[in-house]
């Protein structure tokens, strides 16, 4: 039967792995704060709109919210789901193709079926 092979790291590899882990942790915390910050801005914009603050019209904040949402999806994928790391080229290609089709097809539906 299959024996599970255990690989023991050398001290050098161990310290390298630790350094990498630290770096990635720092990146994650930074991105996490950034995302919280974006969420805060989004909420405050909506509140400002509700309160009738001048300049926060619907046509201004809806596109901005969309933009922030897109940025957050990107951060989520790249930092928390590790897509920024090496060896993710193929999954990225498939995801982008899927996203492109998922965008184009509803667009055609919107323009030629429902409009």
């Amino acid at each position, binding site marked *: *039967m*299959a024996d599970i092979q255990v690989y023991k790291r050398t001290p050098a590899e161990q310290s390298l792995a630790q350094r990498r882990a630290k770096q990635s942790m720092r990146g994650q915390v930074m991105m996490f704060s950034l995302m919280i910050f974006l969420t805060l801005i989004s909420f405050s914009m909506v509140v400002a709109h509700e309160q009738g603050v001048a300049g926060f019209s619907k046509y201004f904040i809806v596109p901005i919210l969309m933009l922030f949402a897109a940025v957050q999806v990107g951060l989520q994928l790249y930092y928390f789901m590790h897509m920024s790391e090496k060896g993710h080229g*193929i999954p990225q290609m*498939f995801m982008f*193709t*899927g996203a492109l*089709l998922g965008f*184009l*097809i509803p667009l*055609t*539906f919107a*323009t*030629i*079926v429902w409009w």
Partner: protein
Amino acid sequence: MSSVAQKKSFGATLWDWLTTVDHKKIGILYFLGGGFFFVIGGIEAMLIRWQLHKPDNDFVSAGLYNDLITMHGTTMIFLAAMPLLFGFMNAIVPLQIGARDVAFPFLNSLGFWMFFFGGLFLNISWFIGEVPDAGWTSYASLSLASQGHGIDFYAIGLQIAGGGTLMAGINFLVTIINMRAPGMTYMRMPLFTWTTFVASAMILFAFPPLTIGLFLLTFDRMFGGNFFNHEMGGNTIIWEHIFWIFGHPEVYILILPAFGIFSEIFSIFSRKRLFGYPSMVFATVLIGFLGFMVWAHHMFTVGLGPTANAIFAVATMAIAVPTGVKIFNWLLTIWGGSITVTTPMLYALGFIPSFVMGGVTGVMQGAAPLDYQLHDSYFIVAHFHYVIVGGVVLAILAATHLYWPKMFGTMLNEALGKVTFWFFFIGFHMTFLIQHWLGFWGMPRRVWKFMPNQGWDMANLISTIGAFFMAIGVIVLVYNVIITSIKNVKVANDPWGDGRTLEWAIESPPLYYNFAQTPLVRGLDSVWIEKMEGNASGLTPAEPVKDIHMPNGSIIPLLMSLGLFIAGFGAMFRTETEWGLGVLIFGLVFTFIAMAARSLQDDTGYYIKKEEILRDLKRKGGQN
């Protein structure tokens, strides 16, 4: 298990095939399943042509005629062409990339059994006497109005079979991405592997729309939905969009592997490296991509408006460019090569003019204003048969001869192979060339009978005679297969003598672990390179001989598919019988239990011992 031949009882052999997860055996299962449905679809075609051989014929009734054309189209696309191609992909692609199996052997088997049970489900409609009759496109207004359970058989049968196809596609993607032998970079992959890869990616994106469309149709017909019912606020055009968002990529899913097969053949039998390999790869990917951008060319006459029609017309015509690149590359591969006209090569040579004709009529139909004239006429029938028969079916027949030794260890008779080719090729052009004119002369598509003296009588008769020629060709092929199997003369690794890719460097058929040692790939056409450099075996090993990890067989895929098959009948008879709902639930529970059994059981496979591999190597004189 041992590689030494053992006499096994019939029961044990049967169990071995039902539980197999070996890509080579699954390839053969796909081949046999697809071949079986090809014959059924072929018989349906002959009945259609017999009905149309003379005006005002009463051979079949109008209703039966609709059943026949619907089942012919559906069977040929989903149950014959796709599975036959999957057969070759399974049998050959893992060998071409130097792998021992596909990435998910269990899923591979599940994919096959879902196709098989889906196909069975669809065809049981013949015995119940309520057969799908809204055409293979099953446009919603028509299919919602259809009486009886015919369309239910279509929706559920294709749902099951389509699930299998999706799994097979994902499996090939993962296999090709992850399991290539050392040195096999993307730009060293043989073209058949490349086209399998792109076709699988297209399956990944094209089959989910079909799944959704079929679910909506199922709900509309069986569970009181109104997605396509305009009286209740639905929209019948949405079905057409969804169907063609799947349907146009589907035709390229069929043709790309065919392109791959012909690329291999041209290169082998011209004894030349494929001309313009990088541009071939690029064209394949581009066709795959553009294939998703053109679906509305099937709907020009729906009334999408001039802007939409113009956009889709231009996109459609753009596909002709990468296709043209391929055609010229093939011609330039033959150019100056040392050509041997074997049966596969004969098919390849016949393919070029046939497919070009189909492509040209495609571009004609892509011109939206002209399509208003051509749409739903026999011209369309001529077009798609030129691309599908002149492209896909010729490729399947060519691959049957080319890869027969690799799959079964024997060589089909060349003389009979050429007889098959000539009957089939002449019959094909005789049947479909004249149909272009039938279209021009105004004969509409999908008509049960036509009245005499409209100038269509002679042309239809010629077309029917051509169909008989094709049938004779296929019968000769079946005869060829039978005598070859009876004679059972085993052949060596590379019976064609000029194999270029890895599959030709190992036994015919390969041992169940394919490669004793994973090969090292040093370029495109790796075996050819090795041979040119004096390495007669054609392989350089990339690793020492060591234990090989293998998956265990399993009956669970068959059981999972069986559960869905049973549930299908339950869904269909749910409202009109007492047992319907019970059977639906039973079938689904059955499948879920089978899935749970698979998840809970900890099957880590087994190892083939190094000693056994060394023994096999010694038996073969130290070669792979």
